[in-house]
């Protein structure tokens, strides 16, 4: 089940362009494109004090939970979530079957403007991902030089001396 295509430089550059443009239009702080499995695909904006990896994982979890609720109440059109806070708010919107757009913006910015401009951004992100998918549907990564039979661990424990400290 390949959900996402291999992304080349051009894809990422275009996604970044879309997000940057959207941030200016909507006066938002950070915008992320997240895979529904929890992977962060692209992000733009001032995320210096933000753990974008965790935001991506949690946002996709929350979004998918809401989609499941939609299924339980026989509703097909729960395509966005909005959380209003005192200072910061979050808006998430469905992009396509595999991805969603997550926007973090100051609460003084109205959600209307974010919602309005996100329509265009979502369409452009979706078409870029579609293009990537069509370009190379079975793309992979050449790992042929990797010796997976190597007994050395990929993850290593700190040695005992360090642990006792």
């Amino acid at each position: 089940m390949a959900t996402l295509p291999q992304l080349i430089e051009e894809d990422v550059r275009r996604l970044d362009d879309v997000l940057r443009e959207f941030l200016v239009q909507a006066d938002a702080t950070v915008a992320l494109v997240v895979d529904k499995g929890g992977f962060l695909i692209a992000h733009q904006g001032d995320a210096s004090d933000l753990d974008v990896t965790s935001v991506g994982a949690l946002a996709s979890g929350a979004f998918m939970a809401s989609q499941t609720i939609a299924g339980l109440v026989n509703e097909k059109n729960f395509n966005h979530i909005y959380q209003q806070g005192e200072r910061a708010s979050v808006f998430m919107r469905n992009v396509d079957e595999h991805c969603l757009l997550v926007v973090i913006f100051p609460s003084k910015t109205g959600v209307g403007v974010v919602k309005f401009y996100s329509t265009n951004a979502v369409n452009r992100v979706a078409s870029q991902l579609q293009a990537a998918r069509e370009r190379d549907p079975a793309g992979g990564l050449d790992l042929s030089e990797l010796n997976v039979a190597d007994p050395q661990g990929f993850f290593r424990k700190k040695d005992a001396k360090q642990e006792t400290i």
Partner: protein
Amino acid sequence: MAIINQATKELQVKIVYYGPAMGGKTTNLVQVHDHVQTAAGNKGKLVSLATSSDRTLFFDFLPIEAMTIKGFKTKFQLYTVPGQVIYNTTRQLVLRGVDGIVFVADSQYEKMPENVESFQNLIDNLNALKINLAEVPYVLQYNKRDLPNVAPVEYMEFLLNNRDVQVPSFGGTAHKCEGVFESLNMITRMLLQKFINQSVPQYA
């Protein structure tokens, strides 16, 4: 499925810890988080969505950056699922996009029915996502080997590892960090092996 980003030279993979309630899935993640040897700054924060009684409500999440393969940074995302039977919908959500599974079984005799039930639940949930268990790399971890009333490993192998292809299994005592890294390294090796077999040589 894993994400390959040629622009930022990143490979992102998702490993899910699955198993019955109170079996030690979260403990595995906590131990990895506490003991993994990484260069400063590339071990993520362990995010845990748990109830007041330490039971996982939605999932635990630990991002780690591991070794570099041919110039690609590999980012691992470790997830656990809630073990309690009632949280099945949540388990299905977490399994989405999974690349590898560590099944954490409870070695105590009286937990065997729960282990078997949880494994069947894993197969059902994968099927619901149109994934066949045989196509996903997975390993088994027989946890809580330090308890007095544990079943022999051979018996657990018979119950849980009795398919066409036998997968690697490890005895473990997660709270002492025994078996934790062995399972994680083996699943990593298996899923990278799968990528190698699938991948076509890329033009430079």
